[in-house]
Structures are given as C-alpha cells and as structure tokens.
C-alpha cells in the first residue's frame, strides 16, 4: 500500500465515494440538500393514521414513497433501498452488484397492530376472549410466513443484500439514536482491518406509528408544539420542548482510498475517525458531568489525529430536547473551551426532525455535502436563543465558509454515544 493511502497510524484511509438520502424533505441528495440549505422544514401534521388522543400530532413522515403493505418494515426497507441505490450509483458502481459488505442501522420491528386486528377478526376455532391465546390458535389455522418475515429483525438487510448485491453476512444494528453513526463506524473498522475494500453503511427509519409516538410521549421526549409543525423542532432554543419524530434514510459508500483511487472514483470526502463511549448513568439521561459524551468526542478526535482547533464545523446531535442540547453544548465546551463560541454548529434536525436510527447516517451525508460545497446548513427556528448555552448555531440561514473537517455527534437512549470526524480530503 502506498504511503499516500494510509493515515497517521498506518491504517487504510477510508474515503466516501457515494451518498444517498431520503427525508421528509424529499428523495435524493440534490432534493434534500437544496431544501436543507434553503432552511425548509419537512415537519408536518400527520395524516397517515388517526391522531386522535395523541399528545403529539406532528412528525417528519416520508409519505411520498408508496409501500405495500404500509408498515414500518416496508417503509424502512424502501427508503434504505432508495438511499443505498443512489449512493452506489454515485460511486460509479453497479447498484445490483455492489460487491462489498453491508452495515445497516434499522429500527427494531414488531408485529403491526393491523395484523393483530386482522387475525383477531379471522374465522376459526379459538378462545373468544381477545388476547394472545386466541391469536396463536388463529395463526395456526391461518399461517402467514410473509407476516412472520416482517417481524424478523434481519429481514431488511436480507432484502437489501439480494437487491444491491452485497457480500457476506450483513450486519443489522441498533444503538438507538446513534445507530447511523455506528453503521459507518463498523464499515470504517472493517476497511481498516483489510476485510473488504468497500462497505455500504445505511441508516434507515420508517417507524412513525401511533404506538411509537405514544411511547415517546410517555417518556416526555416529544415536542407538543402541534399548532405550527414547521416551528416545533428548535434545537438550542430557550423554548425547545422535545424532539420531533421523523423518517428517512442515509447511505454512504465507504471505500479504501487505495481502491477508490485505483478505479478512478471521485473522492467526496473521508472518514478521519470514529469515537464511542457508553454511559452507565441512566436509561434515558446522560451522566450529569457529561463525561461519557466528552470521552466520545475526545475519542473521535484522537482516532482522527485531530485537535478541536482543526474542526471547522460541528454537525450537532441537536435533538431539541431540553436535556440533550444542554448536555451536548456543555460537553463540547469541555473539549473545545472558548473556541466553541466561534465554531459554527448547526442541527439538521431543526428541519428534518429526529430520524432516530437513520439520523447518524443522514447527518454524515449532510456533513460531506457541507464540506463539498463550503455551505453550512442552518439551525432554523432559532428565534429565542437559550442564554445558558451560547453557540454559533448558524441561525436560520445557511452560511458560506471553508469547511475542511466536521465533527458529527450522535447520542442515543440507552447511553450509546458515537462521534464521527469527517474530512474534505485525505490527510496522509
């Protein structure tokens, strides 16, 4: 391996050669990027299912991709396929014969309510009382392998593996809201180990349902600013009151720089480093001193061989919950010090909402585009800054500027934290 394709530790440099994205703003990189940099919101009132008796009635659902049946698994699969196909084609590869590994961040799945209701209404010899004893009896009389397939956590990756022509056993993973970043990290590690020349990292989430909204509402995690949906997600604002659930998918073709150069691929950016650290404090809250988040940021920078001063822009986790945005800002300050005030930081979630499992991958795509175009997407709805966390949030309008390195943060429920350090060009 020539010197110019390895990093400061002698590891293969991991290039990004393809990108794909779906969000409530649209399908495809260009549609999303133009809307995002124009400061448009994709958040709207939900019309896919009844919203009566829900505390939150808004979301960033993706309703423009028709799926049959209209369930979370089909939607997550369709968006992942769309983003994955776009990324592979952008990389100049065959979208039916990718030839590398697949790391897929996908939401947990369950039997859907429509299936339970349909089975409960089926004919058959079964106990009359509603419940699982009845459903099991009826399932024996009306088996449905296709319905069972939709309850398997590995299903989406199997479908994608066949459609996109990936090699080996795909990995399906969840680290909650850090999942998309974990998928990228796994791809980077596999390439650094020399296991493969390229990997497809996808994060997808099409799981906005009534029950999902209720579950998050019961944890007081969601914004209830239902009257003006496009204004509800307001990261780092003083009146932020929770995140807005959303759907989408992001995909990156990761490739050893050596392989990318050898086949003359366009280098869109590089992954300089990844850092992670788990939190042992609480199931939904961060350790009050921020030490796991601080350790994650430091680990990402160390893996990249960079200092905070090398970071030109931060793509925030920025969920718009009171807790996250405060913890993120104070933890960043612990690492960046005074320099944080002059480092632009913005949250894509102000426009596309929180795409949960997909967020880390989508935000990595946008981070690469930020560097490519020298254009930082804004934090919209930043009308009422939180005085406790003074930040340069790139408020309300995109900003031009040279960006050579981006820190992208992802912090999950369950204490799983991942930071990616992305670069505009290889740094041997």
């Amino acid at each position, binding site marked *: 391996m020539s010197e110019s394709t390895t990093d400061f530790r002698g590891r293969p440099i991991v290039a990004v050669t393809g990108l794909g994205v779906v969000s409530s703003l649209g399908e495809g990189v260009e549609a999303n990027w133009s809307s995002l940099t124009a400061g448009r919101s994709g958040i709207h009132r939900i019309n896919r*299912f009844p919203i009566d008796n829900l505390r939150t009635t808004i979301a960033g659902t993706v309703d423009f991709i028709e799926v049959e049946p209209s369930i979370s698994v089909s939607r997550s699969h369709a968006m992942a396929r769309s983003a994955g196909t776009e990324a592979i084609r952008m990389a100049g590869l065959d979208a039916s014969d990718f030839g590398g590994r697949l790391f897929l961040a996908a939401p*947990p799945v*369950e039997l859907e309510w429509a299936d339970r209701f349909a089975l409960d209404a089926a004919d058959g010899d079964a106990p009359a009382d509603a419940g699982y004893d009845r459903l*099991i009896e009826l399932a024996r009389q009306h088996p449905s392998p296709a319905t069972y397939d939709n309850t398997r956590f590995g299903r989406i990756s199997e479908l994608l593996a066949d459609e996109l022509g990936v090699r080996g056993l795909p990995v399906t993973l969840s680290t909650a809201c850090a999942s998309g970043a974990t998928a990228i990290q796994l791809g980077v590690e596999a390439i650094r*180990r020399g296991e493969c020349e390229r990997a497809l990292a996808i994060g997808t989430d099409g799981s906005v349902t*009534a029950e999902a909204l209720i579950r998050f509402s019961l944890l007081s995690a969601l914004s209830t600013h239902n009257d003006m949906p496009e204004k509800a997600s307001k990261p780092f604002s003083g009146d932020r009151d929770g995140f807005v659930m959303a759907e989408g998918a992001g995909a990156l073709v990761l490739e050893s720089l050596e392989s990318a150069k050898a086949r003359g691929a366009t280098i869109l950016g590089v992954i300089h480093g990844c850092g992670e650290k*788990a939190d042992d404090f609480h*199931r939904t809250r961060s350790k009050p001193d921020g030490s796991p988040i601080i350790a994650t940021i430091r680990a990402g920078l160390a893996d990249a061989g960079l200092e905070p001063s090398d970071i030109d822009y931060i793509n925030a986790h920025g969920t718009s919950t009171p807790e996250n945005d405060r913890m993120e800002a104070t933890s960043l300050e612990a690492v960046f010090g005074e320099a944080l005030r002059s480092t632009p930081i913005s949250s894509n979630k102000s426009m596309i909402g929180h795409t949960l499992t997909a967020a880390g991958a989508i935000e990595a795509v946008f981070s690469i585009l930020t560097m490519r175009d020298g254009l930082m997407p804004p934090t919209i709805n930043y009308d009422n800054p939180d005085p406790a966390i003074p930040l340069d949030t790139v408020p309300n309008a995109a900003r031009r500027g040279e960006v050579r390195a981006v820190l992208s943060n992802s912090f999950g*429920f369950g*204490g799983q934290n991942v930071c990616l350090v992305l670069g505009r060009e290889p740094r041997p």
Partner: protein
Amino acid sequence: MTDTARDVLITGIGLVSSLGEGIAAHLDLLERGSAPQPVIESERFAPYFVHPLPPIDWSTQIPKKGDQRQMETWQKLGTYAAGLALTDAGIPTDESVRSGVDMIVAAGGGERDTAVDALVMERARQSGGSGAVMNETLANELRPTLFLAQLSNLLAGNISIVHKVTGSSRTFMGEEGAGISAVSVAAARIAAGQSDICLVGAAFAAERKDLILNYEMGGLLLRSDWRSVFARRAPADGLAIGSVGVFLVLESAEHAAARSAPAYAKLTRVAGDRGPRRGEALAARLDDLIKGAPADDGLLVLSGASGIEAPTAVERQVLANTLPQAPVRAYGSLLGHSFEAQFPAGIALAAATLARGTRLPAFDSGEESPALQPARAALVTTVGHLQAEGVCLLEPVGPAGETR
C-alpha cells in the same frame, strides 16, 4: 483473521439455560456419561414445547431492585448472564477496569404487555377498529418504563448501568445472524488490535406468547411430539424454543496474560454468510465456511441446528462428507432453539468442553455417534432457521486453560 493477527481467547463464560446456571453446572451435567434429560415445559404453551428458565435469584447479579424493575425477563436474563461472564473472567467490578471493556450484544426485542394488547383488541372490536380508541387505550394503559424494556439496544444499556461496561456498546439485531456477527466482529476487532477485551453475547426469553405468535404465523414450531433436533422429520419438524442467556469475554492473548487470566479456549476462525437456501447453494456456503477445520476424530462438532429439517439435513450431509470422523452434537436438543443466543451458546459449550477435556455423550444416541476421545478442537455451526449461517473453530489453550 490474518497470519499477523493477535490470538483471541475466551476468558469468561456466563450461561443460563433450562439446564441450570453457570457454565460449570452445564459441564457437570454433560460429564456424567449419558446426556442429561432436556427440561421441557409442555403444558403452559401446549401444543408447543418450551425449554424454560430455571429459578433465578436475579439479585445476585442485578443487586438493585430499581434496576430489576426497569427490565422484563429478557433484559434481566441478558444482564444476569453478562454478570456471570464478567465474574467468571475475573474482571474486577472496579469502574476504571470495566470502563475499558467493549461490548457487542445480539438482541431481539423485549416483552410486550400482553394484557394491554388484549385490552386494545377487545376495545377495537367494540369500536369497529377505531384508531382514536386504540390511541386512547395505549396512551392510558402502557407503562412508560415498558418501552425501555422493549428496546433492543437497552439490553446493552442495562449491562452498562448494572455492570459498568462502557468501553463501547453495540447492539446487533437479526436472529441467528446477529449472534454470528456479534462474535465475528468482536473477535476480528481484537485480532486486529482495535479492541483488547470484549463482552459479547445474547439473551433469548422463550416463555413469551407474543413471540410464539410470530413463530406460529411462520409455521415454524414443533408441536405434538418432542424429538431431538436431528430426529425431527417434516412435516413433524420445527423449533422447540428455549430460554438462553449467554455471554463470553473475548480477550487478546496479551491482555489476558497481563492480568494472568486463564482461558477456556482460543478462537481460530469465526465466519458467517447468507444467501439462497436451495440445497446446493447452502451446501456450497457451508463447505466454504468449514474449510480449515481439522478432518480427524479429534474434532468435535457442536451443531446449532434449529430443528427445521431441510437446512438441518443439508448441514448434516456437508458435515458427513467433509468431516466424517467428527462426532456431531445438536445442542438445541438440550437447550432448545434460542435465535440470537444460539451461536454464542454453542461457543460457550465448546470452549468449556475443550478446557475440561470432556468426552461429550451423544445427546440422542439414535442420531449421534459416540466420541471416542476428548476433543482436540471444536467446530460450532449455526444454520439460522431461515437465514444466516456461521461457524466458529476453537482450539484448547494448553495447561492454563485446562485448569479452569
């Protein structure tokens, strides 16, 4: 793993199954000369067969009642087995040590509240399937903490909270393939120097009607007559699911030596694949996966076969062709099928068998041939019930390991 890779050792095992608690208790049962009787619950879930959990005092590994209340059985089982593995590996509870331990968990989803689900269905009948009524019922009846008990990645989250393992935390999903990938990625990271020590494993709680419903929808369950895994013939084949919590501590040889930790066994190959299940395609993949296994009577094969006849028949044929002298044991006959936990559970049994030099009895003497000598190497296979195949090849580590 390449030639320059570091050795990957198993230095800790935590295993809970219907047979009991702890890897030593499992091996004790297997050393008695004839195979133990499987423990099978055939009434509560009739006509299905479930290998249930033994009585467990959760407090011994999850001391805080507050932590226990945040989990249902699935998460408690995994957290408990993880604690057993860390204790077995002699990892001090000191936070500064545990914070350097990486973790990969293979997970499904947690328990639903079956009473609330029944209520929702009841009211849906009365309201003609009104979404408004469903929303109201769920909003009023669901316990907030249950969501966290259901989330796949919260098994790992609970292990971090209870056992202070925080080096990293990754959750892989997808039935048997998740268990295969978890061990394979953990071992590859250690071999390549990306990690020194990693807690890896899974839990599967079988006594769940919400899951039994799914499997019955797939037409996958064994019913009416229980037979050993290798004796199941279509159409009377299928899964007898079993509760299993299993975690392994994988460690680089250097890291284990530095803390004078004895090992059970060395992992020399972990690999997985997937693809079409047509007989010849599956056979070709399995052939490729098991290449490198020593073809002599010193090899023991621990097969994670599911009980579904078609793929099991292909696997047995490949083993008979390629490794004709090796005794094969289908450990699902004893533990039941445990999806995400299936592969790591086989590795746990294989590692301990090698370390003790146990000559494993046939689990079904009508289907399995006797082992003529203690194994000198072990091959663990897992052919997923519908998708994913994996193998793990293990070797003994010598005197230090044998003392375990």
